[in-house]
């Protein structure tokens, strides 16, 4: 709790300093330093929710261009693990580090989280929804139309989001990952609600993200069609490397 409050205070102070025009607090921060490739490391994570241990002793390491699939039975803590990485849940024990990232930012601030909910406002149009998240996360607005075209929603840009189907809402959420560039993607059941064409489109997008040096952690029940995949079974908690092509 103390650490969390301290972090929040630092965020507010550093925001004010940069707002006043003095630039980031630490020299070199704010620009993405490509000194070392990125690496997400978790050591002995422990999640305790609602009076029970969801998972204990979870360790893994994912490098740039690699994807981690998190599998396990219902309630094994797949979503909780992703939310812990995103900084939305606190880990009771353990350590989580992102090497090669921006030292000024927390892991959550460098990650995209595609959760069960799509974070879409029904009364706003498709393009307004995406525009808001692009503005909020500080992305150039020129990428909006391209991102909508990537997920095949450019024809529906002016439609209120209330009229979208579940799959289309999912695709609008995915467009956020394209419009705003962040190195770490945390995907919770990313293919749910998507048709076959959209699933293979998502696989292409994930391949492109990995090829650009990005990282992916995905909670999934089925194969997501990627070649370089590490698998983390939450029932066993020891990551094992899946042979290339086995999950495709």
């Amino acid at each position, binding site marked *: 709790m103390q650490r*969390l409050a301290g972090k*929040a205070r630092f*965020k*507010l102070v550093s*925001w004010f300093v940069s707002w006043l025009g003095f630039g980031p607090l630490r020299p070199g921060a704010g620009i993405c330093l490509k000194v070392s490739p990125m690496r997400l490391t978790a050591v002995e994570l422990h999640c305790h929710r609602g009076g029970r241990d969801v998972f204990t002793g979870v360790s893994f390491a994912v490098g740039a261009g690699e994807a981690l699939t998190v599998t396990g039975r219902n309630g094994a803590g797949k979503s909780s693990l992703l*939310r812990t990485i*995103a*900084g*939305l*849940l*606190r880990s009771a024990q353990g350590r989580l580090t992102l090497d090669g990232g921006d030292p000024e*930012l927390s892991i*959550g*601030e460098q*990650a995209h*989280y595609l*959760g*069960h*909910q*799509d*974070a*879409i*406002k029904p*009364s*706003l149009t498709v393009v*307004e929804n995406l525009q*808001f*998240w692009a*503005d*909020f*996360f*500080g992305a150039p*607005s020129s990428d909006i139309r391209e991102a909508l075209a990537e997920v095949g929603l450019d024809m529906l840009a002016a439609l209120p989001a209330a009229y979208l189907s579940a799959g289309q809402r999912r695709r609008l959420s995915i467009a956020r990952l394209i419009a705003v560039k962040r190195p770490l993607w945390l995907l919770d059941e990313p293919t749910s609600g998507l048709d076959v064409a959209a699933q293979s489109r998502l696989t292409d997008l994930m391949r492109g993200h990995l090829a650009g040096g990005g990282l992916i952690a995905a909670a999934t029940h089925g194969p997501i069609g990627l070649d370089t995949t590490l698998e983390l079974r939450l029932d066993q908690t020891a990551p094992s490397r899946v042979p290339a092509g086995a999950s495709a």
Partner: protein
Amino acid sequence: MSALAAILVRDMRIAVRVGGGALMGVLFFLVVVTLTPFAVGPDLALLKRIGPAILWLAALLASLLALDRLFANDHDDGSLDLILMGRAPLELVVAMKGLAHWLTTGLPLVIAAPLIGLFLNIDAAAEGALVLTLLVGTPALTFIGLIGAAIAVTLRRGGLLLAVIVLPLTVPVLIFGVAAANAAVVGPVPFGTPFTILCALTLASLVVGPFAAAAVLRQEIE
């Protein structure tokens, strides 16, 4: 557009579109004030004496109307998770949401007040002072309400809890708001003293509200 401006524009857009409830507050305000002369009777002296209190009570209740869904909607559709992962400090995001709520709910009340004041036999000179107290006081009501809205974020029907938590906290604002308005309408107390205290209460709540609400949201989101 910066992150904070984006929040402001989005919340105002949602409020004025279908189902947003921006006009609900001002309509409620109108109805309550219009009903008062029917309940009290056509006693012009009495209406003039209780007029400021009625206007302030109606404004207080109206500004709490749509407040319970302020954070709950963002929590239910997953937006709050993403807001927490943004680079803008949560305190300022909360303040922006409060500002958007005041601009769509509080400001229409202030604009409608002179017209509604006619129903309560308030003369033109006092009208200006009354509107001034509402202009200064309603932001305090919204920003104190932010704390209750944050506490009610995970509750399905948080409206009642919000009222129970927030209304006692608004008592000082109500006392000095009505005192200043009464001073202008019926005298003989000077207008400046209660009005200055009302300004101070508003300034304090503009600072305390967002920090307290952000702290509550961080705890509730887990």
